């Protein structure tokens, strides 16, 4: 079990109803974490449209998480 912090923004914050949470999770990669969260909150946001950040830097879905990581799923930004 790893203890991680999740922060939510924009559409995700609205859908989940909070801006952050800390939880203990049995997950290997960032992708696994999103699958867990998506299932927990019945999210309809496709992973293919999201980016992911690990400890305030952009990361890849395959990256493995560690204890006390901060993770953010990033919905499409406002653009032009």
């Amino acid at each position, binding site marked *: 079990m790893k203890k991680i912090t999740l922060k939510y923004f924009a559409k995700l914050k609205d859908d989940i109803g909070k801006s952050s949470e800390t939880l203990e999770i049995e997950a290997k990669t960032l992708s696994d974490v999103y699958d867990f969260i998506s299932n927990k909150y019945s999210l309809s946001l496709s992973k293919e449209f999201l980016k992911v950040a690990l400890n305030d830097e952009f990361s890849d879905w395959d990256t493995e998480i560690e204890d006390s990581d901060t993770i953010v799923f990033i919905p499409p930004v406002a*653009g032009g």
Partner: protein
Amino acid sequence: MFYFSYEKINPIELRNKLINKSAGAFVCFEGWVRDNNEGKEVIALDYEAYEELALNEAKKIINEAKERFKVFDIISVHRIGSLKLEDIAVWVGVNSRHRKDSFLACEYIINQIKVRLPIWKKEYYINGDSGWVNCENCHKIH
């Protein structure tokens, strides 16, 4: 330098920070809240940012611009919170010896800000609706 502002952006104050006796050119870009988007009448909007990541990424963007173009300084400020029509959402100012570098750097910065920084815009429409821009198509049926 890039930072977020929770208050109205003051363009002349920012411009004056870039005054430099050796610079012959100054170019600035302002992104304004406009009253329409994709056919819908906009009355206000909220900007929200993942600030820690945005600040890290903005530093990279500014360093890239300084490597690519011969400029002296770059200042950029992005507004956060509730904005009204005509408010400045984002400001980018650049000075350089020759004008071409200022134009190129300024456009590079705003283009990169728009695609790379985690900043989101929620629009409020005259008909009472509202929505996060660019996230209307990010859903799938489970």
